[in-house]
């Protein structure tokens, strides 16, 4: 027990260290490239970690997480444009709205016992339905999209420098990490993983899988909603294909899986590694459009072939090897 508690403590310390270290980035550099890179990597981390809550811990693979991202983004934009609401006030609405859509889709899917690829495809279909609706109704601006007027001030959640946005998204990421930490160190997380590993066994010992999965999708969607709101604040523009297109859904799940599902730091690693990879290949081969993405795709396949448990799996393997050798050593003594 003491071992587990102390590892939980170490993880918390790790999160704190991460938060402080990243928060210092804008203080030590004013390089727009560096700040933008860190900001976008954090953004990718956020959506990967959001996906990880449902996909990694809950075992429910969503292909349509853009559904929640887009909903958060649209609420953030519409609240400001049509409600005249301050973006800081709009943010909780965006998060709540995304969570509500998550609960709705979750209630439908889990009530009817959808699993595996069925759940994956249903989320994809829902995202597509929302995309088509966003094109068709008027309050989303239809296909023209919505533009939030440019008014740079912290009170308006539009920061003059990338640093401000970096801190904002860092706050979301830290919140997501803390939730993930809680999943690894609390009853809810234990139940969620139990449901993932064997739903019937979990039911037999008193777990209500429907409620657990519902809560997980709600949480996951809430963080996606925050990411959507963040996107609108940074880029001040949203349209149906940015909001509900598959790019965001894919980015979220790839980073989470490549990094290591159901782990605390996996999605962080995945998001950073993929971002570095994408940037590196683009900078090296940017003059020949396509070749950078070919390399990216090849590396992705190689990672899957050689690191089936994701990047975080390397750490686990090394640790296991190390402790196994340590034990052997003990025997010799």
């Amino acid at each position, binding site marked *: *027990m003491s071992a587990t508690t102390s590892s939980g403590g170490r993880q918390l310390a790790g999160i704190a260290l991460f938060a402080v270290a990243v928060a210092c980035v804008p203080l030590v550099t004013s390089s727009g490239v560096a700040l933008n890179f860190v900001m976008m990597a954090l953004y990718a981390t956020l959506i990967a970690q959001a996906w990880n809550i449902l996909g990694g811990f809950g075992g429910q693979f969503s292909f349509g997480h853009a559904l929640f991202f887009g909903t958060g983004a649209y609420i953030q934009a519409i609240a400001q444009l049509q409600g005249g609401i301050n973006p800081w006030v709009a943010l909780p609405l965006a998060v709540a709205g995304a969570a509500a859509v998550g609960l709705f889709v979750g209630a439908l899917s889990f009530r009817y016992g959808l699993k595996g690829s069925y759940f994956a495809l249903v989320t994809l279909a829902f995202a597509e339905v929302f995309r088509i609706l966003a094109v068709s109704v008027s309050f989303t601006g239809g296909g023209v999209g919505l533009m939030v007027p440019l008014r740079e001030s912290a009170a308006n959640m539009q920061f003059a420098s990338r640093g401000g946005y970096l801190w904002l998204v860092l706050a979301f990421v830290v919140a997501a990490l803390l939730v993930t930490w809680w999943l690894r160190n609390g009853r809810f997380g234990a*139940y969620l993983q139990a449901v993932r590993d*064997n739903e019937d066994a979990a*039911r037999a010992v*008193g777990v209500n899988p429907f409620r657990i999965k519902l809560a997980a999708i709600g949480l996951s969607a809430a963080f996606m909603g925050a990411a959507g709101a963040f996107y609108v604040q940074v880029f001040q523009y949203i349209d149906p294909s940015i909001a509900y297109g598959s790019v965001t859904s894919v980015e979220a799940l790839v980073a989470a899986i490549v990094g290591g599902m159901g782990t605390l730091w996996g999605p962080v690693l995945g998001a950073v590694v993929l971002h570095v990879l994408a940037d590196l290949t683009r900078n090296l081969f940017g003059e020949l459009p396509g070749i950078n993405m070919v390399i990216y795709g090849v590396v992705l396949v190689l990672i899957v072939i050689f690191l089936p448990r994701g990047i975080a799996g390397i750490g686990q393997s090394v640790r296991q090897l190390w402790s196994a050798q340590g034990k052997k050593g003990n025997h010799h003594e």
Partner: protein
Amino acid sequence: MSDALLALSGVSRAFGGLKAVQNVSLSVREGSLSALIGPNGAGKTTLFALMSGFLKPDSGTVRFAGEDITGHEPHRNALRGMTRTFQIVKPFAAQTVRENIAVGVHLHERRRGVALARAEAVAAQVGLAPQLDKPASDLTVAGRKRLELARALATRPRLLLLDEVLAGLNPQEIAEMMPVVRGIADSGVTVLMIEHVMQAVMHLAEHVWVLAQGQLIAQGSPSVVTSDDRVVEAYLGHGTAARLRKAAAGANA
């Protein structure tokens, strides 16, 4: 009937045309250790599923501790005090033994640390203490059976439904497991087990129900039940009992 912890009356369930369980009525006395036996395909596991809420009966009622729980979800029944295990073990493979057991402890304990700590005591009770921090996927078949048991036990049930905890074990492992089950019953938990290993049934159970083709065909103490012609025939085929008796008489003469 006041001391019946679990009472089934007229429970039936069919799948398509197949009547898996037909009009079964039985009551399990609080504090007892009893067994449900029957040939393969008799509907024993289906009956367990109907008791624990994994399946809903087409007709009939299930009462637990005096309350009608017919059609209630398994997790609600677990909270009331009835937990089942599975014949085909279902460990949370990605987690350690301790974490597996803690899921059960969590039913009555919110705190993670306490749950993980208590898992230790439960593991000791079923003889899993040495494997406590191994991944569940590393356990042997016998280990997994113990884990299945431990996880259910961790919920502090009043009634434990054990679905063939001895199946697939070698004689030595069976011999090790039997006192564990005995111990659980002695600690005050009512146990109803589905079992094929007759030696265990004879030793452990004080009351036995026999299910064949979805119907209860006999009940009573193990010795009474095993000498019942219908039971012998259910296991070995029509007319077997008479033949066996004749053969026995011949041998004696």
